[in-house]
């Protein structure tokens, strides 16, 4: 349920007591959009930020992009701004395209489209000249009333198809720029219905088109993007079994008695499981945490004919009678994923309250088996797992998590850590980035939080620029061991100036932390620096709430207090327990 404005204002009273990281948002608009501020502040707060919002001048978007000043006489955005939201309502810009479409000649129509696209392009170019903030452009709204009614959908050159074409052309402009995204308002309208979306009372004398519910949904949608770009998206979904994955209790109802089927009463659970399988394909780690006899649960997984979720979809599990908070902690350790990237779903208020209390970092969802028809929507509507990257690697991620889980178990058995690592038979390969690896490297900069010295987030286009820049080297590391090929799990960006190589980015996927891979990687980085004939390698550490474990990484490797290493006289050696470390 969406909170009311009063409830949100109550929640926001807590913000000033917490020392949260600031997040600067600028709103450029040709409508009255000020009422969205509390919603932006609320969703920022939920993501651990304190939003600082500045609002551009009414219907002055392009001018505001050329140094416009806000009401407080300060620039509306600067190079420090994190995010720019653009509300560009078609009615205000082109009455013809939005409302008077039928009187347009084909020539006039094309010239209006051109004027529109030109404005979009100029606005974005002006923004990009000044800052690299994320730009969220709120897209075209579906016309409330189609200009030709039902005939509209039968024609090629109707208003509807013209606007669809316009939308595609806008997206083309966005894709040529870095960090510009299209937020589909038609989607937001679908979520709450067109009658709830608009409040026409304030349109004619206030130029405010949207209802509070609409602004809430829009702000929520905006933060799906912001969270994904800030690495705040969730990575693991922990599932209860009885009355969550199926209806009923396996211990009492037996495999033939539980509700799980494509049709009928078990249909809700079947639908829900399909949603879970989809999350698995998107790279979300699914884990089980239930109070059952383990063999009963696996019997359902292996034997129930309508079970869509299979063992292979499960990255980790704790099926026992111990407390769930402790079990979720164990799952987080075994997968090496932070608890703040966890979502837990259960039908028991006791369990959900306990986890909320003991592990406040975990996002908790309580479901009601009497309303099991809502399960699918509950998980589908959250946006918790939304990411702006998708690649074939994602559906393989569970295999890697399972391997990680296996490694951790083996680790517990082997007493001596070096001996354990030697048994893994790790083979490291470090290479210069090429076209094929750019996407994965960008993805790593987006996702990696723990072993990340600078936590700089880059898009594919950014990485591409580095790769083609003569004063930069982009290196990636891939790792194989007895459990399989982990693929590309590390990246470094070096920038050269004079006799210094600056390490702009040094990161390792959390799956491979704690194995000395970083030392092997650094040894190759130094080799790369030597190829460029520089004398000094300089590191950088930018602290965040998550990367404390690497705060002394460079000093441990022999760098001085200014994080410099003279590579004429010093080097870093890869640990002996690696089977091979190859740099080519």
């Amino acid at each position, binding site marked *: 349920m969406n909170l*009311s*404005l*009063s409830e949100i*204002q*109550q929640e926001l009273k807590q913000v000033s007591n917490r020392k949260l990281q600031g997040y600067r948002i600028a709103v450029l608009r040709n409508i*009255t959009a*000020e*009422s969205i501020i509390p919603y932006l502040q609320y969703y920022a707060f939920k993501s651990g930020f304190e939003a600082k919002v500045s609002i551009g001048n009414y219907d002055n978007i392009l001018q505001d992009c050329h140094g416009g000043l806000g009401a407080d006489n300060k620039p509306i955005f600067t190079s420090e701004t994190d995010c720019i939201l653009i509300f560009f309502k078609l009615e205000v810009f082109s009455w013809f395209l939005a409302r008077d479409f039928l009187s347009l000649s084909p020539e006039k129509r094309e010239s209006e489209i051109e004027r529109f696209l030109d404005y979009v392009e100029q606005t974005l170019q002006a923004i990009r000249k000044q800052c690299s903030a994320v730009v969220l452009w709120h897209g075209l709204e579906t016309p409330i009333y189609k200009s030709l009614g039902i005939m509209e959908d039968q024609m090629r050159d109707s208003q509807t198809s013209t606007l669809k074409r316009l939308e595609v052309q806008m997206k083309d402009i966005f894709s040529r720029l870095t960090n510009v995204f299209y937020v589909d308002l038609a989607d937001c309208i679908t979520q709450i219905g067109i009658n709830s979306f608009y*409040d026409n*009372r*304030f349109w004619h*004398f*206030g130029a*405010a088109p949207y*209802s*509070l519910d609409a602004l809430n949904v829009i702000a929520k949608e905006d933060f799906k993007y912001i969270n994904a770009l800030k690495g705040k998206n969730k990575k693991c979904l922990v599932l209860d079994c009885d009355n969550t994955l199926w209806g009923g209790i396996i211990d009492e109802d037996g495999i033939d008695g539980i509700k799980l089927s494509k049709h009928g009463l078990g249909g809700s659970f079947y639908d829900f499981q399909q949603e879970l399988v989809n999350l698995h394909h998107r790279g979300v780690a699914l884990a089980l945490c239930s109070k059952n006899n383990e063999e009963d649960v696996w019997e359902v997984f292996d034997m129930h004919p309508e079970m869509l979720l299979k063992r292979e979809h499960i990255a980790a599990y704790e099926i026992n009678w111990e407390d769930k908070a402790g079990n979720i902690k164990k799952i987080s350790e075994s997968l090496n994923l932070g608890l703040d990237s966890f979502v837990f779903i259960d039908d028991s208020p006791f369990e959900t309250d306990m986890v909320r209390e003991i592990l406040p970092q975990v996002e908790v969802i309580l479901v009601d088996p009497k309303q099991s028809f809502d399960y699918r929507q509950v998980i589908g509507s959250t946006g918790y797992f939304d990411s702006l990257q998708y690649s074939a690697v994602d559906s393989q991620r569970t295999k890697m998590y399972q391997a990680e889980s296996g490694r951790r178990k083996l680790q517990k058995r082997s007493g001596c850590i070096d001996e354990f690592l030697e048994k893994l038979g790790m083979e490291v390969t470090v290479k210069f980035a090429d076209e094929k690896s750019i996407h994965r490297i960008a993805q790593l900069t987006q996702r990696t939080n723990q072993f990340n010295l600078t936590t700089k987030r880059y898009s594919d286009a950014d990485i591409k620029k580095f790769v083609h820049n003569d004063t930069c080297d982009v290196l990636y590391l891939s790792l194989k061991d007895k459990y399989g090929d982990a693929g590309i799990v590390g990246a470094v960006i070096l920038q050269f100036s004079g006799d210094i190589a600056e390490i702009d980015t040094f990161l390792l996927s959390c799956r491979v932390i704690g194995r000395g891979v970083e030392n092997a990687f650094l040894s190759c980085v130094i080799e790369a620096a030597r190829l460029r004939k520089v004398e000094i390698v300089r590191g950088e550490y930018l602290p965040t709430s998550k990367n404390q474990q690497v705060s002394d990484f460079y000093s441990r490797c022999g760098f001085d207090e200014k994080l410099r290493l003279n590579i004429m006289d010093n080097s870093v050696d890869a640990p002996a327990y690696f089977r091979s470390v190859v740099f080519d």
Partner: protein
Amino acid sequence: MDVQEKVIQVLVNIFQVSPEKISTKTTSDDVEKWDSLNHINMILALEQELGIRYDQEQVVSMLSVREIIDETKGMLGLQ
């Protein structure tokens, strides 16, 4: 909570003032943040809280706490 208390609570939240600053005698001129923008927010928040929908006339005319309470009670059939 009666209508008057609810109205005052919403106004306190929207205009970010302490409850003592809002009485039945308060008008839009007395409250610094009661501008046209926050007026819209106030109307919308009252509607959310009370489950009603004011008409076009009411939206522009309710510029004092007294008027808001009277109109709202009328809407709720309390007068």
